[in-house]
């Protein structure tokens, strides 16, 4: 799976402070460390970027390009900031993100055409996030059609189905997979991506990693193309490289509903099996799911 590192983010204190002080060092350090960690893209998340967004994005792209060759994912809802960043990007670049909202269609999608950029399009529209797989399909197909008409080919579109936290809506996490499977039939050639960390909002801090890692294996199994992740989750990176085959295997067995004897596995593999049972909807989620047999 293609991994997009999420660690340069206006919500983080380091990034926010460095941006305010126009101090490149801390952000460049984060970029170098994420590159070393082994992710494929770097996300530069400025959020709404209402004040001096264009200036900030341009600065951010320039200082990061000075220290890494990784392609960038420019992450802001402000189209002016987005364009300022796109104009100075040297490599191929990803717009993160557009959606089916009228404003986004009018201002964000044309940028993908103008700069021949790839673009993440979420299922969000002016009515909000559709509640089920069918509603998501309808929303995204409308937006993809508009994008195609503007001249953006499916190959340049990365669909974000929007993942909800498992503690908020476990069924939506289970249904997500159904949507991914539908997507490749509905819009051949489109890619998919997702903010994986959203899965664990509200979950106990020490359990976030295993939830994220397990869900990545599940998504990979159902041919998800990419995910936006914490670059410093080493287990996640290793799993993605196929370096922990036993764990991958145990999760796949749960997906396939094979009868498995938990006693035969190591403690860590057992935890993965239990987590996979929760994320595939076989067991009701509670914060203490690992403590139950």
């Amino acid at each position, binding site marked *: 799976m293609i991994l997009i590192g999420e660690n340069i983010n206006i919500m983080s204190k380091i990034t926010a402070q460095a941006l305010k002080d126009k101090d490149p060092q801390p952000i460049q350090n984060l970029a170098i460390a994420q590159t070393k960690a082994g992710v494929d893209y770097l996300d530069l998340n400025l959020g709404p970027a209402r004040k001096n967004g264009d200036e900030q994005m341009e600065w951010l792209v320039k200082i990061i390009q000075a220290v890494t060759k990784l392609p960038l994912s420019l992450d802001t809802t402000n189209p002016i900031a987005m364009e300022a960043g796109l104009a100075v990007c040297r490599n191929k670049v990803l717009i993160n993100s557009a959606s089916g909202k009228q404003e986004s269609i009018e201002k964000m999608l044309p940028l993908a055409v103008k700069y021949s950029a790839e673009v993440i399009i979420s299922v969000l529209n002016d009515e909000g996030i559709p509640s089920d797989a069918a509603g998501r399909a309808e929303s995204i197909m409308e937006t993809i059609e508009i994008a195609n008409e503007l001249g953006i080919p499916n190959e340049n579109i990365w669909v974000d189905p929007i993942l909800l936290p498992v503690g908020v809506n476990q069924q939506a996490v289970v249904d997500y997979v159904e949507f991914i499977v539908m997507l490749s039939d509905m819009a051949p050639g489109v890619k998919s991506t997702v903010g994986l960390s959203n899965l664990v909002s509200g979950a106990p801090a020490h359990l976030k990693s295993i939830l994220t890692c397990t869900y990545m294996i599940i998504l990979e199994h159902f041919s998800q193309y990419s995910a936006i992740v914490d670059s410093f989750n080493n287990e996640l990176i290793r799993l993605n490289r196929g370096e922990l085959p036993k764990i991958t295997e145990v999760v796949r067995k749960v997906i396939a509903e094979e009868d498995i004897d938990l006693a035969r596995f190591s403690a860590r593999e057992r935890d993965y099996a239990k987590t996979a049972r929760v994320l595939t909807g076989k*067991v*009701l*989620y*509670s914060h*203490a799911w690992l403590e*139950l047999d």
Partner: protein
Amino acid sequence: MVYQPAIDIYSGKIEEVILGPGGNSVRIGGEDTLPFHSFEGVLPNPPKLALEICITKQADWTEEKAGDFSNLPSEPADLAKKYIEELGIEIIALQFAGAAISIDEMAKRAIKVIKAVDIPIIIYGTGVSEQDQILLPQIAATCAGKGLLLGPAKKENYREIAAACVAYDQRVIAQTPLDVNAAKQLNIMLIKEGLAADQIVIDPLSSALGYGMEYTYSVMERIKLAALVHNDKMMQMPIIANIGAECWKTKEAKEDITQGVLWEGITALCFILAGANIVLLKSPHTYKLTQQILSKHLTDVEAN
């Protein structure tokens, strides 16, 4: 072609919880199928109704048409006896919400009622976590072995209440705010504190008809499905619906007692359909009406 009824068999079973002292105990739960699915499995204990008595001030249920339940005794113990005699109620629920007296005084009054009657008693505390974690253990200790159902135990105060229930063999109401995942979590934590599964009753927090009842309904359904279809041991406790206060604070109930009785009665029946094993009512009129409907249904089922 011969008609083949669609019968499902479930892998899970609801725990049977015994309330009250030896001779007069009442059992709730114990079913191995969905509510009213007697064609699929066994429901050994029909849904139960409990009638609420406020520990401080009694409501006036005078209704022109019905005439009865006016001039109710102000002493909770006397009222409890009157309800037992005239309505044949099987369970009393002492309600403390909004009581402007000291915790010691609350405990004293509760103990007086518990000693005066010998049917199962629910102690539904003030709902303020800091008060309940003192009040409930105090009552639990004084009335050891009475099989009281105490609560609400919440995320914030379950430890103190669970410890008292373990020590003095009482039952606990586990309350979470309309959230199946949180309900499961609280049950797990209570069991970690040493309670047995058959000492716990789930309170998913109930709303009144027209004021969000559907949310509670769907949470109850999901709890029963997790318990029965998925055999989730941490969701197999019976469910309690505390609806009295919610129904009687609605605009519709305040306008007119008859309307309020119907409001409370419909709310109760809906939750019983969703899977509530015990429902707490405020009005004796509602109790009478709902009990009649339930008894009629049970007679019909037996006749078939």
